[in-house]
């Protein structure tokens, strides 16, 4: 692992923020307090953080229906997101978007997306914009990243976007998070390519990488290489991360498709946060105590965010008509 102590602590903090955010939501949703559909990202934290730690606000990402992790990793405000999920007018999107439509353009977060596979073309547009803007003084391009799952990899929009990125030589990166389930259907059934998404990207003419998405260091190191390649102006690239989804497709999903003992096994063997902790403490890069301290800080921060969301101002009927157009 090539990261400084501070960077490691920050990576751990961000992963923990996502995990606690999702765990809290899982409990709150079960109480019936939150409206709508929610898809939790817990289990995949190393991907969002390992990718986004390399980015600035000028780099863009486009996310999915399972978007909380990408938003938090890209720097969206924890409290603003929680308020949004509660449907408050103080939320990041004033209660108009909810869980599936969180966006923060100033942070380079161009939106979670309720339509599976819709994000990749938008990310390619942002990548074309980055190409038009050109390289900075260090010879680097800004990049645009499309997060897609093993479900979205079957959508024609994703194919179109990959081809268009190659044709336009845009600095786009297709990050495929293979969590083995598209909704309630197994990866091995739904993805025709034998056990692989990256080879599809390769067939479109892109350089591709593959790594274990539950290993933060593998994600982070891989993305360093990918970003060097794309920022230098070599055109688009793709990465496939093998990862795990700890909760169902949506909250309330009874998950009858899981194998017996599967969740216990992946939580024991494939928990990216647990693995990170073990790696950095065994290598004596960080102390267990300082990580415990972060655990406590993060838990209290999330608890406070939930409290503030619960008390935040509710939207009014008049708000329905606002922000459809700039001018009409």
């Amino acid at each position, binding site marked *: 692992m090539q990261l400084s102590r501070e960077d490691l602590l920050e990576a751990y903090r961000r992963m923990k923020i996502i995990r606690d955010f999702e765990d809290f939501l899982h409990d709150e949703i079960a109480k019936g307090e939150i409206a709508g559909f929610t898809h939790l990202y817990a289990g995949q934290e190393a991907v969002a953080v390992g990718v986004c730690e390399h980015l600035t606000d000028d780099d*863009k990402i486009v996310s999915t229906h399972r978007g909380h992790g990408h938003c938090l990793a890209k720097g969206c405000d924890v409290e603003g997101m929680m308020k949004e999920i509660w449907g408050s007018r103080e939320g990041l999107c004033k209660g108009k978007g909810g869980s599936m439509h969180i966006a923060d353009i100033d942070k380079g977060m161009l939106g979670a997306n309720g339509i599976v596979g819709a994000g990749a073309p*938008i990310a390619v547009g*942002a990548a*074309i*914009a980055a190409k038009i803007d050109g390289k900075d003084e260090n010879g680097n391009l800004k990049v*645009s990243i499309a997060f897609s799952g093993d479900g979205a990899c079957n959508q024609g929009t994703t194919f179109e976007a990959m081809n268009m990125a190659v044709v336009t030589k845009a600095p786009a990166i297709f990050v495929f998070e293979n969590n083995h389930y598209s909704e309630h259907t197994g990866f091995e059934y739904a993805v025709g390519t034998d056990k692989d998404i990256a080879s599809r990207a390769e067939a479109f003419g892109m350089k591709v990488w593959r790594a274990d998405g539950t290993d933060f260091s593998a994600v982070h190191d891989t993305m360093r290489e990918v970003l060097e390649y794309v920022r230098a102006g070599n055109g688009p690239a793709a990465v496939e991360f093998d990862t795990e989804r700890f909760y169902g497709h949506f909250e309330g999903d009874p998950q009858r498709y899981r194998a017996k003992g599967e969740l216990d096994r992946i939580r024991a063997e494939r928990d990216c946060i647990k693995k990170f902790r073990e790696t950095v403490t065994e290598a004596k890069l960080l102390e267990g105590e300082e990580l415990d301290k972060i655990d406590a800080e993060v838990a209290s921060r999330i608890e406070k965010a939930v409290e503030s969301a619960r008390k935040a101002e509710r939207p009014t009927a008049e708000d329905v008509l606002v922000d459809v*157009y700039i*001018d*009409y």
Partner: protein
Amino acid sequence: MARKMYRDAVRDTIFEEMKRDPNVVVLGEDVVGGMGTAGGPEAIGGIWSTSGGFYEAFGPDRVIDTPISESAIVGAAGGLALSGKRPIAELMFADFIGVSLDQIWNQIAKFRYMFGGKTKCPAIIRCIYGAGYNAAAQHSQSPHAILTGMPGLKVVMPSTPADVAGLMRQAIREDDPVIFMEHKALYGMKGEVHDDPDYTIPFGHARLTRAGQDVTILATGMMVGMAEGAADKLAADGIGADVIDLRTTSPLDEEAILDSVEVTGRLVIVDEAPPRCSLATDLAAIVANKAFASLKAPIEMVTAPHTPIPFARELESAYLPNPDKIEAAVRKALAYN
């Protein structure tokens, strides 16, 4: 004023705006044409000759010749617009919105609202639409009604070269997403166009093209000329018609429509699309609801039938509205007591 064709008004206005604003970019299938061929770039210059010379003037970064990928074209326009550019995407045929509808309907139309008003999406989707070329069921349609019904979009349907120039310039300078519908059968139409490089026509302002006291005729695009033809013939018989070119269907100039109907009391709506859940029925509902007391006769609608668009010349002619059908509808409205 300069005399030019409808298609050249499209091309020249975009060209001038690209010179003025480096953020304006063009993308679509064959907007350059000839990429990857022996003929080389600009072998086509846009299938409708509406982007000739763009590539040479502005280069491949701003004139983006795309593969045949309508979803990715519209989606990329959305991503460009969220990243500070002003993309003008071309859908070679408006019928292809079927292929790209998610990106129009669920994405660009809704970004601003879903994201709590904290972004703008200044994207233009040019849709080349309409019958008259015997291009049959998948290359001749007028899908303005479904687009007009989508909150977040503005829908523009110019009927003359002058309006193309004013409305296109306005569209490019708008910060909301715009569907710009160009009627393919009007591309060769000639007319006077303003020379003023800042000439714009604000959206939501209809144009009265003929004035009369007896009947109101509403039309858009190619239907405007047909309505005028009918009105001119009726004028010879002493029947006066207001012909109102709506120019934009979203926003809609309700005031112009209602003011006219209050005077005439009789309304004929001309629409190139089929009759159900259409612009015609929408306008009829608005007038019935808001000007009921002014109406002296049932609202007449001259539309295409509830069929796909047929190929053969005789069939397409029978399918489309025409001045005779409009004249007959006016006479029917006038005959009602």
